[in-house]
């Protein structure tokens, strides 16, 4: 299995297409960082326009943690689409190239072959996430320094101390890894049915886009079912940036406000991964390979 995984990773990282996502992430993150570096104060004025008269901001709100939060909010909606480029190509791309039939004639079980491919696409998603962490978090910390993080929401402002943030990012990236692997599993599932990459890539993107739109629409019909869409749970990483309140309504540092909800969302995503991957293996083991 380890040998198969190495082969799959070798193939993934030998293909030029793989690096499109890394270049895209680098471009987006750099653009955001340059924009904040040049026009940061104006942006902060805009963010705080409704509250600046009531608050005195001490310290450097425009620090690396804030920039990373901004980057994650922007990227974690679009990165799934980049993950789909690779995961949805894993089986369909081989069928399209005509190499799938060659793989199946080797003395490897179809289940092992699929699992190695799925794990390879998951590893790709995690490496992409690490790339985001390096550029979005560490480079931002280096360029903009560190201080407290202001999480401005529509109904509250959460202020986290500088020494209470880094572990939250580690947890958030861990959660994001589960979310991206869910997308990889979905792309992988669609990939089983097709003999060219385009169909499963478009199908995966369409599901994410449609579900995301339905999740954000404030229509009662969709509100009642949106917890069923996995896209609703993909933004659960934000939960790590909310603190519990004591009886006086004061934030308690080092706590997560609704950890059970965050864990439940992660569990739902994990169930989706098991469902999509199990479904892929079940169908692929019974499929006639005619490509």
């Amino acid at each position, binding site marked *: 299995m380890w*040998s198969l995984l190495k082969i799959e990773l070798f193939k993934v990282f030998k293909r030029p297409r793989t690096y499109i996502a890394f270049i895209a992430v680098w471009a987006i993150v750099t653009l955001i960082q340059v924009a904040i570096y040049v026009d940061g104060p104006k942006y902060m004025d805009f963010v705080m326009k409704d509250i600046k008269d009531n608050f005195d901001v001490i310290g450097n709100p425009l620090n690396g943690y804030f920039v990373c939060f901004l980057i994650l909010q922007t990227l974690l909606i679009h990165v799934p689409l980049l993950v789909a480029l690779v995961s949805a190509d894993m089986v369909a791309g081989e069928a399209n190239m005509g*190499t799938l039939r060659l*793989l*199946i*004639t080797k*003395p*490897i079980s179809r289940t092992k072959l699929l699992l190695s491919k799925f794990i390879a696409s998951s590893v790709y998603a995690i490496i992409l996430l690490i790339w985001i962490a390096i550029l979005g978090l560490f480079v931002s910390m280096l360029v903009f320094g560190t201080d407290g993080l202001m999480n401005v929401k529509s109904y509250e402002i959460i202020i986290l101390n500088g020494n209470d943030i880094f572990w939250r990012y580690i947890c958030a990236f861990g959660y994001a890894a589960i979310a991206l692997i869910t997308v990889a599993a979905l792309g992988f599932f669609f990939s089983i049915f097709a003999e060219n990459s385009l169909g499963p890539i478009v199908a995966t993107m369409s599901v994410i886009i449609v579900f995301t739109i339905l999740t954000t629409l404030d229509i009662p019909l969709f509100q009642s079912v949106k917890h069923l869409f996995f896209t609703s749970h993909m933004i659960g990483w934000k939960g790590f940036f909310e603190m519990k309140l004591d009886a006086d309504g004061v934030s308690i540092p080092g706590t997560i406000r609704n950890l059970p909800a965050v864990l439940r969302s992660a569990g739902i995503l994990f169930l989706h991964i098991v469902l999509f991957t199990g479904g892929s293996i079940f169908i692929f083991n019974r499929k006639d*390979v*005619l490509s």
Partner: protein
Amino acid sequence: MESIIKVTHLTKVFKEVTAVNDLSFTVQKGDVYGFLGQNGAGKSTTIRMLLTLITATEGHIEIFGYDLNKHRKKILSNVGAVIERPDLYKYLTAFETLQLFAKMSEVKIGRQQLMEQLEMVGLAQRAHSKVRTYSQGMKQRLGLAVALVHNPELIILDEPTNGLDPQGIADIRNLILMLSQKMNKTILVSSHLLSEIEQIANRMLIIDKGKKLVEGSVNELFSPDDTMIFLETADNIICVNVLRANGYASNITSVDEKGIELKLRKEQVPALTRMLIENNTEILGITPRHSLEDYFLKITTANQHVEPFKN
């Protein structure tokens, strides 16, 4: 004789189409077994069932004496295959491709051995070029190297000469003969290029519409009685009269302005030539028409799609 492949009552139904219909055959150790049929006859479907790409609707496949369904891994570790065009990873080099498939076959092969494999198929010089720069013939030879990388006992080749130029076809033919004669491999090769099979196979199976038409050794299938001779002379009318006058009337199968076709035994050919010369017949050409293609066309003629062109 040891059976390497034993197929019994194999059937594959795709929705309403029966691609393979109650097919049985046996490939013996050391055979170069020609698998013949027109396009759509069921050759590729059968080969895909032998390689577990598709599952049989009915029937049983035994390879090396083991049930394919129960001992898939054990069997496939000793089988090499090229299925139609060997589409390989275009972004890898030939060396990387071979290395990758060696690992997949769970064999440890050193750099030197891999280069020897590439040398055998004439690709050592281009070992480190990307596959996307290869011609179709080179890809086909690399596909064969991939099939051989784990030194399998049985090699299955599905239309290995498809899309190749005459040189490419000759290369593949020579490789198959070398594998059979020098390395004692058992080879199952399907093709619709009948002349190719005729040159390399010792036994063969002809199928049509998924059904077996005939199976046997190439020598058995072509009885000397079936030898056809096409005779071209300066005056075919006079020649026909000479033939009739000398007891060959029953051998004449057709006559036209281009020549005379005769059916006779091989050993009668020298006597026929001598008789024609003694009767002052000006012979322009004697062409044997005994070939697998004639045989194949004869037994599959009912399925011909286009009438033969007659000028």
